[in-house]
């Protein structure tokens, strides 16, 4: 019944479909761009970060700090294949060069995957030190240090009453690390037990936890967080990118969706004209037993068909539009911004297509409600009198 009406008004129906599907296509295209950028950014992080690594630090509750004690470390061991606690302290040389010294175990090297470029690793129970590549550079410039040299440093400790006590120590430079592009470049490494002794610590400043597969990371993380400790991993960055890109995509989609309002207004307009043209037909229908609901159903079913066709057409045009953005936008981004190695700038998934389809359907039905209601409320006597 509804199909017949749409078929008799072919041109009009086609124009409405065009209006709706362009709106849907704009939303689908823009959303696919947002989705593409998001996936590319997440890919980028996954390439440069180890998602199997979780960095644990002391927990912060409202009142106090949850310290990483030996028993906490034992509890954490349950969650990772490699669990490497470490301490972290600031030292200063005689030339006032500050540097961060991490007291680590061999497990830590496994977890972080750091490699020597020159020299050897420290021996346990000694004050031998391995420098990250940036610190190495600093030390060779300022201190004139070389592998095998001793370097004097001082650590400031705070006693019971908050009184500062300085402690002097001589490290032996024994190796340097290959540049990693991470914060390890700015750190120096010594034996964990020596570091604890120097800083007079019986707790740890952090734990590196490595799981076998990145899919195990969320569960491990949840378990560690249940111990009231704080966790950080590359997943945090991915999460924040997802949050930002979802927001951006939503806003872009919303503004490109404004064209859908035009489509909706077109439907309202056409349906009102259609109600006017079919006044007599509505009067006849009422006289032969159509209820108000029947009349509303009659008009809304036309809108549903328009919504379904508009959704399908809009998705198809949207895919084409997305392909066009990909084709035109990718070379532009690569030449202008120097971003390379992007396989696809846009990405279409089932969610986007379903959303596009649903938007078309919802707009069409919403736009049809008022005209349908007007038709249902027509006075049959007046409607039948109209020629």
């Amino acid at each position, binding site marked *: 019944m509804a199909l*017949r009406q749409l078929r008799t008004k072919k041109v009009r129906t086609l124009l409405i479909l065009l209006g709706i599907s362009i709106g849907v296509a704009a939303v689908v295209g823009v959303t696919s761009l947002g989705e593409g950028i998001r996936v590319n950014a997440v890919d980028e992080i996954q390439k440069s970060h180890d998602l199997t690594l979780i960095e644990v630090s002391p927990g912060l509750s409202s009142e106090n700090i949850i310290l990483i004690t030996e028993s906490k470390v034992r509890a954490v061991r349950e969650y990772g294949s490699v669990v490497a606690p470490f301490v972290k302290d600031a030292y200063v040389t005689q030339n006032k060069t500050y540097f961060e010294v991490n007291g680590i175990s061999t497990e830590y090297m496994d977890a972080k995957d750091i490699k020597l470029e020159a020299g050897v690793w420290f021996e346990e129970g000694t004050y031998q030190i391995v420098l990250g590549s940036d610190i190495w550079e600093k030390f060779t410039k300022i201190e004139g240090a070389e592998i095998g040299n001793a370097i004097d440093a001082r650590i400031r400790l705070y006693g019971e009453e908050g009184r500062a006590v300085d402690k002097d120590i001589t490290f032996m430079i024994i190796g340097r690390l290959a540049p990693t592009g991470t914060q390890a470049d700015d750190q120096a490494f010594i034996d964990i037990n020596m570091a604890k002794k120097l800083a007079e610590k019986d707790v740890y400043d952090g734990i590196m936890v490595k799981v076998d597969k990145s899919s195990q990371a969320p569960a491990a993380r949840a378990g560690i967080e249940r111990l009231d400790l704080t966790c950080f991993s590359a997943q945090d960055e991915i999460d924040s990118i997802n949050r930002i890109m979802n927001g951006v995509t939503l806003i872009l989609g919303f503004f490109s969706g404004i064209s859908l309002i035009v489509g909706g207004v077109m439907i309202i307009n056409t349906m009102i004209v259609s109600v006017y043209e079919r006044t007599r037909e509505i009067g*006849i229908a009422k006289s*032969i*037993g159509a*209820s108000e609901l029947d009349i509303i159903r009659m008009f809304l079913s036309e809108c549903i068909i328009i919504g379904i066709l508009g959704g399908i057409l809009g998705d198809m045009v949207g895919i084409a539009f997305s392909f066009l953005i990909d084709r035109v936008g990718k070379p532009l981004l690569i030449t202008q911004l120097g971003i390379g190695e992007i396989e696809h700038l846009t990405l279409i998934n089932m969610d986007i297509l379903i959303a596009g389809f649903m938007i078309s359907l919802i707009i069409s039905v919403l736009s049809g409600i008022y005209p349908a209601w007007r038709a249902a409320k027509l006075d*049959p*006597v007046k409607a039948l009198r109209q020629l």
Partner: protein
Amino acid sequence: MWMVETRALSKSYLFGSGNQVVALNDVNLTVANGEFVSIMGPSGSGKSTLLNIVGCLDKPTAGNVYINETKIDYGKAGHLVQLHRQTMGFIFQGFNLISTMNALENVWYPMYFNRVPKLERKKRAEALLESVGLKDRALHLPSELSGGEQQRVAIARALANHPRLILADEPTGNIDSRTGRMIIDLMKKLNKEQGITFIVTTHDMVMANNADRVITITDGEIVD
């Protein structure tokens, strides 16, 4: 047993200017089951208004209408819809067929609203068209039919849901007298053979002469 009864039925229209126009004034009318009643009167006398109110397309200002001895509650849309679907059929002066539907579809349309299964309504529509002599015109659009043929389709449509009452508003008003004669004969036949009650407004003397009873309305009142 009364098919239709009106008690002190009045209808007046209030215009924006404050003028009140009385279309029906205290109309008391009874139509027996199986009766063929013709209502005559000059244009504007209120006969169409009476038909519309009895046909539940319009509401009275005062008074009551009983159909099958049941009082009509004009405030209850569902009740009126049921009457349209099951008890009464309409025939109009201007045929009022749906122009985008062919004859067959026009006839099954009331059954569609009455939730008759698809196959059954097609079968009945075909049978009805055959009974009004339009079997070979079933797939024609109204614009492809003559006035007499269109009115016969309209009669077939009015019969779709086995009504007990048919209300016809000047059914021969738009067709020539020879074809009009055929329409009158068809209506009479339905009245005689199936016992359907007819209330017909008309200017046509032939129609009036064929009626069991003629009622004349002038200025909204029954004259005799």
